């Protein structure tokens, strides 16, 4: 076993066998596939070939034989005869075997009578010799397919043929001076320049009279074939008695122009040709007027339908410059089975149709003679063909020229396209003849090859890498070449081999030669197999490839590049302004869509794009609006003092999220500040409360004991006086502390303000009532003037009372005795001025520009002492009007009053004008 594995010779042999097996396998496989799938030649292949050949020949036959058959079948209704289909039916039907041609397949089988194929050879070009003989009623056609006699270069082809060849529409065509007919069409003609053509000229000037025998022709439907195969009711054999009419021709018969009929178009004379007046209508169509006064086209449709051959010819002549004004009247080719059949019998001429063709031929008795002569003169010829005619009305001379001759072999050349289709019947026939055995043998050979391939393949894989005297797997230098390089070289070689065959393999021979490189490549497969197996065994199949190495390197580069891009984008994202982000985004979108529009370039796509844009931008805007709304609502709440409120930024996008977070952090800051402030206010309140307590407690003792002391019998006048001072001053201290506390509360805003509707009038009455005794004692007389009935304001009654209390108390203390005190209450608007200062100035601090109506209460009194101090100063704490400070009071009253007024959204102003002391209160 080991020996078997390590044997180099055995491996070599196995390799060779594998290579050969592969080649044989591929070739046999191709054929086997063809055989099995019947693509080339299978069970139905033969039938298809037969059909194909029949069709092919039928087309060929068509052009030659159809007129004859046509005539036989339906001479009258030529136009309507659907010979495309019916023809074949007639041609190949059992009853009409008479008209059949022999077709002999390459296998020697006779397909159709009278038509046979000698041989089919496939050599790129095939020449067919066709002999057409006219016998009594049967046309025999021979198609001889012989070896190539005359290869034709593409360059030699006429332009139209080149064109059609290029387009692949035709697959054969004629060379000049041969029969031309086209694939699928039945246009064909015999060239009149055949060397055997002869011209016969008949002069009619000596004809005096002829007898025309008119024969009634049988109907087309009556034409039939009897059992023996001969035609019943042959139009060429008169079925009725011959009626002879004598006609005298007056050559000078003239036709009046007014007798012209046949067209609605206005006609213009267009000259005279051959003695006939030619007219032209507005469409540019030329007419002449026949002897019956009927307008006839120069080239009438009739001619086309009567036989393309003649018409084609006529057209050519007509179109030639020198023949421009010649009337062409093409005759039907006698052999090509025109409708007209002229039948000569001694002096009688039988014409099958008397009025549908050229009247001259039908009516002129001269023609009998002409045809008599013609028949005589041309009886040795296979065909007679009128090539030319001339009629001079002035002289009455009518000349016709006939081409006539015998049939001969016509050389028909097929040019087969180089790229043969698989179904080309020549290819089929070739295969039929030579490849049958190969196709039949393909499948068994293929199976055998497969077995051989499998065995040798398995052996080579198994034995690969094992070498004599070497432990493990032997790796040769070849095995170290990168695997993909080896594969690429092998693959390119294989492709090259395939290319050679595919591009240049016209023939089997060339294919054989050109397949040598591919064969070599296939033969080298065992080497590839060996190295592959070794690589698999060693495990270096993928590792040792250039591709993997390059991919690894690219992956590294891409990773690095991606990392850099990421950091750049990250930088931009972090550092770019939102405005620039949007601007750049829109510019990019614009450019992108501009190119998209350019690419689409049709309106619908652009509109669609616009709609898409609208959707996208709309969605973005809506999202932005939603986010904006969230921000707005959140900011409102924060602004409204909802300090603990947190914006939900989890569901926000883009910059809005950042902005929301900023708001949140602002709010955090505010809430910290508010808390701090609350805390500090709370502490302040606490402080005041505690200080109050701490001061009041000793003060309580002092007052109490001073009181007790005053009740003691001291028996000392001075001591009594001192105790009295102590008592007074401790009371003053008590008052001072109370005022101080109140002032500090009022200015720090630690006072609760409870707004309610307060009637200033009532309050004033109450206040004055409280002070009535005091004022009376001083001889002060309050004069209260209400300049308005609406004296209700929005304020805190208690605080306002404190203000009034302070003011009236001040008055009672500082006003000049026995004077009047004026109190005025009025409603003013902010744009009025009071005493030189606009009210706006006064209240703007409290009202922030609110121009509502306010209530003004002013207290006026004459000061007892000289006021050498401004109103501003008076409102400062501990400032009193009297510098001496000798009366009771601590100077806190006005300050507290002002603070309390401010707390109630009001204001207090002091105006000092000489000894006039005026306090103005502004109330909302």
């Amino acid at each position: 076993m080991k020996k078997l594995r390590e044997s180099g010779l055995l491996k070599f042999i196995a390799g060779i066998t594998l290579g050969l097996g592969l080649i044989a396998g591929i070739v046999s496989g191709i054929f086997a596939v063809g055989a099995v799938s019947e693509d080339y030649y299978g069970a139905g292949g033969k039938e298809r070939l037969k059909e194909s050949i029949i069709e092919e020949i039928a087309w060929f036959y068509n052009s030659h034989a159809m007129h004859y058959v046509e005539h036989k079948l339906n001479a009258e209704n030529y136009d309507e005869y659907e010979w495309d289909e019916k023809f074949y039916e007639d041609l190949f039907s059992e009853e009409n075997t008479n008209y059949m041609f022999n077709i002999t397949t390459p296998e020697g089988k006779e397909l159709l009578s009278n038509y046979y194929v000698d041989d089919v050879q496939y050599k790129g070009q095939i020449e067919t010799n066709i002999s057409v003989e006219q016998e009594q009623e049967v046309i025999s056609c021979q198609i001889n397919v012989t070896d190539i006699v005359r290869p034709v270069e593409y360059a030699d082809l006429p332009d139209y043929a080149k064109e059609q060849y290029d387009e692949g529409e035709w697959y054969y065509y004629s060379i000049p001076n041969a029969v031309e007919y086209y694939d699928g069409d039945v246009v064909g003609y015999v060239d009149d320049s055949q060397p055997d053509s002869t011209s016969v000229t008949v002069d009619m000037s000596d004809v005096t009279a002829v007898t025309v025998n008119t024969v009634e022709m049988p109907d087309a439907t009556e034409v039939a074939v009897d059992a023996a195969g001969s035609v019943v009711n042959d139009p060429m054999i008169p079925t009725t008695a011959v009626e002879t009419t004598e006609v005298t021709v007056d050559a000078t018969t003239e036709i009046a122009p007014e007798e012209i009929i046949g067209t609605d178009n206005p006609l213009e004379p267009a000259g005279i040709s051959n003695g006939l007046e030619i007219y032209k209508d507005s469409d540019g169509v030329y007419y002449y007027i026949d002897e019956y006064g009927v307008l006839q086209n120069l080239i009438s449709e009739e001619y086309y339908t009567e036989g393309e051959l003649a018409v084609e010819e006529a057209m050519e002549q007509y179109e030639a410059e020198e023949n421009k004004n010649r009337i062409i009247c093409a005759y039907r080719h006698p052999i090509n089975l025109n409708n007209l059949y002229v039948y000569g019998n001694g002096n009688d001429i039988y014409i099958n149709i008397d009025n549908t063709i050229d009247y001259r031929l039908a009516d002129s008795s001269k023609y009998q003679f002409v045809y008599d002569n013609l028949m005589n003169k041309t009886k040795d010829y296979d065909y007679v063909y009128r090539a030319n005619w001339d009629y001079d009305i002035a002289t009455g001379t009518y000349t016709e020229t006939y081409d006539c001759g015998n049939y001969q072999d016509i050389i028909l050349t097929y040019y087969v396209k180089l790229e043969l289709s698989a179904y080309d019947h020549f290819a089929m026939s070739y295969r039929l003849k030579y490849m049958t055995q190969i196709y039949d043998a393909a499948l068994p050979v293929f199976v055998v090859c497969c077995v051989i391939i499998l065995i040798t393949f398995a052996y080579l894989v198994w034995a690969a890498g094992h070498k004599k005297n070497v432990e493990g797997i032997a790796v040769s230098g070849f095995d170290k070449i990168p695997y993909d390089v080896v594969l690429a070289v092998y693959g390119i070689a294989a492709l090259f081999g395939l290319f050679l065959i595919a591009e240049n393999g016209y023939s089997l021979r060339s294919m054989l030669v050109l397949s040598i490189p591919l064969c070599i490549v296939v033969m080298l497969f065992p080497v590839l197999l060996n190295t592959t197996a070794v690589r698999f065994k060693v495990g270096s199949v993928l590792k040792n490839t250039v591709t993997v190495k390059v991919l690894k390197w690219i992956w590294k580069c891409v990773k690095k590049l991606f990392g850099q891009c990421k950091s750049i984008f990250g930088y931009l994202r972090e550092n770019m302004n939102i405005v620039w982000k949007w601007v750049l985004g829109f510019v990019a979108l614009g450019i992108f869509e501009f190119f998209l529009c350019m690419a689409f370039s049709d309106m619908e796509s652009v509109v669609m794009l616009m709609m898409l844009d609208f959707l996208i931008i709309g969605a973005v805007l809506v999202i932005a609006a939603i986010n904006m709304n969230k921000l707005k609502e959140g900011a409102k709440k924060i602004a409204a003092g909802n300090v603990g409120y947190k914006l939900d930024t989890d569901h926000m996008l883009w910059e809005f999220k950042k902005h929301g977070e900023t708001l949140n952090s602002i709010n955090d800051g505010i809430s910290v500040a508010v808390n701090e402030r609350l805390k500090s206010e709370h502490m302040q309140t606490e402080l005041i409360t505690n200080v109050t307590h701490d001061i009041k407690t000793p003060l309580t003792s002092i007052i109490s004991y001073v009181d007790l002391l005053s009740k003691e019998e001291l028996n000392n006048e001075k001591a009594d006086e001192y105790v009295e001072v102590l008592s007074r001053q401790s009371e003053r201290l008590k008052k001072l502390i109370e005022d101080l506390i109140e002032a500090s509360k009022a200015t720090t805003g630690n006072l609760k303000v409870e707004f309610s509707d307060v009637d200033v009038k009532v309050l004033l009455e109450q206040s004055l009532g409280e002070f009535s005794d005091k004022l009376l004692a001083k001889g002060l007389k309050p004069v209260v003037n209400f300049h308005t009935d609406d004296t209700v304001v929005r304020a805190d009654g208690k605080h306002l009372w404190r203000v009034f209390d302070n003011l009236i108390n001040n008055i009672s203390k500082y006003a000049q005795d026995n004077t009047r005190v004026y109190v005025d209450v009025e409603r003013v608007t902010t744009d009025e001025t009071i005493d030189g200062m606009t009210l706006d100035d006064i209240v703007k601090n409290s009202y922030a520009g609110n121009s509502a109506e306010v209530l003004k209460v002013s207290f006026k009194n004459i000061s007892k002492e000289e006021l050498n101090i401004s109103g501003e100063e008076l409102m400062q704490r501990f400032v009193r009007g009297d510098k001496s400070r000798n009366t009771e009071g601590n100077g806190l009253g006005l300050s507290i009053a002002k603070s309390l007024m401010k707390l109630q959204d009001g204001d207090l102003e002091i105006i000092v004008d000489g000894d006039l002391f005026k306090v103005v209160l502004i109330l909302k």
Partner: protein
Amino acid sequence: MYNILICDDEKDIVEALNIYLTSEGYKIFKAYNGSEALGVIEKEEIHLVLMDIMMPVMDGITAMSKLREKSNLPVILLTAKGEDTDKILGLNVGADDYVTKPFNPVELIARVKAQLRRYMTLGGSNTTEKKDVYMVSGIILDDKSKQVVVDGEEVSLTPTEYYILKLFMENPGKVYSPKDIYKEVWKDIPLGSEGTVAVHIRHLREKIEINPSEPRHLKVVWGQGYKMEE
């Protein structure tokens, strides 16, 4: 002879109060914090308590709320905190009256007397509801005899003052504006002369209130009018 408990952490104040009240003929017990006060109340028969709020160990509010679980003897709070909230808290917890420090000894004694009178003579027995007799928080107005008794002491009023008081007593809690009062009492249309109402009311207050500037019964609703406390 009534027993009064004075409770304050400031010994000087306790001593001063002791002197005042002893001279009035009361028997004085002393305590220096809330829990001491509760101890004394348990042991002795106390008729009135004067209690400071801010005290160590147990403050006045706590002590009083504990006291109120068992007893309804009158308690006058002494407070250095002049805050309204403190006063309200004290009254809510069950104090019968309060006096802010520094107090006026005369006022204090008057309040003590008033509380004792109410507690001892009227306490619980003021159900004798007679027609034409109005009773509102310690003030009794007998319309028949035209007699007014405040905290057990008869007060002499002028006719105007009497009718004003009667008006308030008829509808305690209702706020009367000076105009209303003038209309009701003078039976006349007030044409700017309602200013006199304030003066009368002040005089009335001086008669029925212990401290007229801090009235307990006839209160001023500043800017609106006056009302009788219910």
